[in-house]
């Protein structure tokens, strides 16, 4: 048996026991206090954090409203796509993350950094869109490495799809990521960085209607963000449907026959003022903007001298040329400086204010009345008329007929053009108006500039004998197949006598049907009335004229403004070909094909 000599006395052990018990009591009280502090005093704080941990609101992107033509053909719809998002907060190793993005998307590291940097002011939990239209194999790859890279999120997002590719690109416009500058505008107050908005065309103009209402899903998630349970869901609402006045069959047809030209074509339904087709060449592919447009593709669009992104119908500014003779004829008749019996002898040129003005027909047209002056587009006749009219009077009639102001057709960024007046010149060029300038204006030259849309409006007004239609492109807006708003045709009366229109129309009819300048537009059985316009870029007096005229960019612009039928006009067509040369040979036959197509 082990016998031990005790060093500790009973008292010693008791003393130790008591002091240890006191220490023990003290420790447990402190411990309880520490837990009381966290569990009771700070309970609410930690409860919020716990809820934040498990709850997540997931935004479900709404589909954008459809765009359809007058026959309900869908011309802009949505496709569901996988998009890659980055949540900055969850990044563990920034370098690795960037490398991974580069591997998956092939976007330059620098570009990725720039992209992420843009979201500096956004909370760390914001989903930064990195790549739209992620291919399926990449989606699977990202998902398979989710444990390693929890900072990535793959979401299904609707992206714009244009089934007709580049057809009607200028009508539709394109979509693009909202810029910081746009975000600051009140109009885009409810948008977030990374969202797509309409950047041009209908997509831009009707953005507020097309945009849907995003849905929200509240889910329970675990520590890795994996969804455990869906608690509630608000389904997204698709945006409103825009029904256009465009007839896509005709649009396609015109694009096909016009594909080798640069310029614009506009067709309007004269019964309503609804546009049937708007062509502007060259086109672009709206869909390439919906995903990722690479730099080369963008540079090509921006630097192309033929400006594919410009809608030449409303943004192209050109001198109207002989088409302007319509304005001159009406002004002359209405102001009573000419009538049907006024005759001017054309010898190929005429001397006015000491300067010689040439007719396009250098051998001369001989005696010309108004009908034949219009029919043959005789410059001398109109020079003589111009001499009798004040520039401000001409401008008054030009503006009355819709030139020099926006048509408000319903597409963004429409250009104004210019109808010069004396006061305008004084104000902007600080110069007095020279009478010689009026002579140039009277055949559609000088400082005049108009858009094809304005010319279409003018010829429509002529066709309707002074009833100016409100040109428009949107027929109605629908929500869930119910009409929200409809465009009601509006016609404005132009204070020019109907009789004067009839006189002009006789001239326009002869131009097409009586071996006039527009004879190439003649269609059997259809009374087409029209006016050509060949607007030279260089003067015939230029010593190098013969050489230069063969170079494309020195060729004249070709116009043809027309309507049909003569008596009860239904359709007006304007064809404009940049550097097309002789309008009668280039622009007029295109119009003829269009009429044939429509009235067949």
């Amino acid at each position, binding site marked *: 048996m082990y016998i031990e000599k005790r060093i500790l006395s009973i008292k010693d052990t008791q003393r130790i*026991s008591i002091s240890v018990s006191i220490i023990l009591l003290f420790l447990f009280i402190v411990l309880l206090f520490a837990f009381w502090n966290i569990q009771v005093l700070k309970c609410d704080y930690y409860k919020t954090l716990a809820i934040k941990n498990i709850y997540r609101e997931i935004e479900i992107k709404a589909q954008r409203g459809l765009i359809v033509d007058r026959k309900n053909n869908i011309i802009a719809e949505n496709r569901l796509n996988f998009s890659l998002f980055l949540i900055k907060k969850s990044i563990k190793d920034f370098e690795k993350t960037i490398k991974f993005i580069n591997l998956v998307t092939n976007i330059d590291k620098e570009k990725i950094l720039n992209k992420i940097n843009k979201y500096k002011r956004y909370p760390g939990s914001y989903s930064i869109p990195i790549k739209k239209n992620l291919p399926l194999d990449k989606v699977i790859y990202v998902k398979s490495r989710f444990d390693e890279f929890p900072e990535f999120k793959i979401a299904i997002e609707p992206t714009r799809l244009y089934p007709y590719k580049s057809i009607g690109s200028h009508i539709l416009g394109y979509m693009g990521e909202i810029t910081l500058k746009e975000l600051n505008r009140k109009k885009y107050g409810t948008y977030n960085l990374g969202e797509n908005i309409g950047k041009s065309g209908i997509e831009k103009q009707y953005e507020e209607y097309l945009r849907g209402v995003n849905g929200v899903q509240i889910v329970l998630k675990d520590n890795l963000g994996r969804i455990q349970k869906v608690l509630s869901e608000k389904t997204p609402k698709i945006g409103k449907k825009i029904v256009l006045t465009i007839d896509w069959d005709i649009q396609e047809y015109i694009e096909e026959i016009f594909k080798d030209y640069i310029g614009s074509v506009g067709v309007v339904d004269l019964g309503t003022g609804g546009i049937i087709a708007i062509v502007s060449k060259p086109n672009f592919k709206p869909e390439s903007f919906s995903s990722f447009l690479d730099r080369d593709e963008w540079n090509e669009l921006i630097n192309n001298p033929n400006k594919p992104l410009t809608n030449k119908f409303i943004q192209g500014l050109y001198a109207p040329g002989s088409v302007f003779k319509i304005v001159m004829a009406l002004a002359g008749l209405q102001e009573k400086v000419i009538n049907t019996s006024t005759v001017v002898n054309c010898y190929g040129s005429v001397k006015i204010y000491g300067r010689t003005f040439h007719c396009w027909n250098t051998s001369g047209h001989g005696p010309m009345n108004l009908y034949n002056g219009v029919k043959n587009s005789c410059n001398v006749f109109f020079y003589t008329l111009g001499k009798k009219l004040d520039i401000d009077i001409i401008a008054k009639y030009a503006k009355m007929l819709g030139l020099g102001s926006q048509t408000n057709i319903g597409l963004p960024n429409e250009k104004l053009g210019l109808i010069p007046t004396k006061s305008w010149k004084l104000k902007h060029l600080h110069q007095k108006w020279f009478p010689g300038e009026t002579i140039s204006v009277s055949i559609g030259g000088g400082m005049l500039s108009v858009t094809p849309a304005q010319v279409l409006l003018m010829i429509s007004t002529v066709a309707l004998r002074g009833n100016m239609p409100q040109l428009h492109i949107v027929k109605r807006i629908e929500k869930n197949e119910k009409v929200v708003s409809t465009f009601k045709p509006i016609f404005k009366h132009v204070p020019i006598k109907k009789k004067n229109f009839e006189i002009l129309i006789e001239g326009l009819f002869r131009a097409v049907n009586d071996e006039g300048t527009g004879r190439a537009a003649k269609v059997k059985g259809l009374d087409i009335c029209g006016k050509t316009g060949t607007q030279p870029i260089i003067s015939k007096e230029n010593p190098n004229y013969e050489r230069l005229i063969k170079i494309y960019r020195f060729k004249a612009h070709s116009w043809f403004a027309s309507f049909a039928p003569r008596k009860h006009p239904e359709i007006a067509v304007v064809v404009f070909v940049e550097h097309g040369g002789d309008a009668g040979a280039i622009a007029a036959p295109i119009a003829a094909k269009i009429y044939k197509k429509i009235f067949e």
Partner: protein
Amino acid sequence: MNNYLKYLDKFTFIVIIIISLSGILLIYSVSQSLEQSYYLKQLLWLSISLIAFFIVLRIKTEFVFRSSLALYIILCIILSIQLIAGQIVGGTKSWLRFGFVAVQVSEFIKIPIALYIANILSKIRIIDWFTFCKLIFLLGIPFLLIAVQPDLGTAFILTSFIIISILLKRIKLSIIFVSIIFIIIGSFLSWNYILKPYQKNRITSFFNPEKYSQSSGYQIIQSKIAIGSGGLNGKGYLKGSQSKYKFLPTRHTDFVVSVLGEEFGFVGVSFLFLLFFILFYRQFNFKSKTDREFYFVYLFNFFILFQFLINVLMSIGLFPILGIPLPFVSYGGSSLLSFFIGEAIIFKIKINNYL
């Protein structure tokens, strides 16, 4: 045997059983999200521990003390072999496999150490340099063997024996003075040359968990959220979102208190603390026949208390995360078994008084 049972401190024994069962209750709660039936394993280990408890209860105290050094040497040898030939499980070589059961030998070394230190302390009046060096040597070997496994937590907790010894015995002041200098130099060297980045991270994040909220501070923050969000009454059994949705790390071992705090609230935590308080109070207040018995009971109880405190303080961010389980509660068969064996010796010592 009947005598043993007659004098067994049944009340304290029941308290330990309740603590262990509450551990199984919590482990069951987290087993679901861990997708492993840890609670069944723990239940099996509790049965083994109870059998071991009653076996140890029959062994004479004198034999236990006498064989302590031999046991210590055997365990140290096993630890060395493990280091050389052991297989790595979960990043460390802490485990020794016997067929289908894996044992953490490092958990058992505390028993012979406590016994042997009790022996040493009972023979001296004051800790002098010779005794101190003996203690350092005694603890140093297993400390290093366990630290390189690497299992810093288990190694670290062994150093508490030195502190307990100093508290129980008078000590030469020069030793304390020199030790402090050594600790300062030692911690400087280990910080710069020995500790691995993740180990350092644990310590830096302890001081500023928010800054490391995505990495090493994450555990502290999530544990505090679990406990804090439990509130007064808790979210209810099996309803803790922090553990259910896996925000709590190592919730079956190191952060088992956080599960308790989340599901049973302050009330539940207080109840467990009360049980522990009763356990410590009962085991510290007893009449001993010999000094070494007295010292052993204090050494071993203090060791449990230290481990308890570190684990609990860790869960509320008041102590760096060391990976130390909560005695009797956390999942871990070796830990449970070793504590039951140690307690058996204490119960036996208490019985000895009546014989």
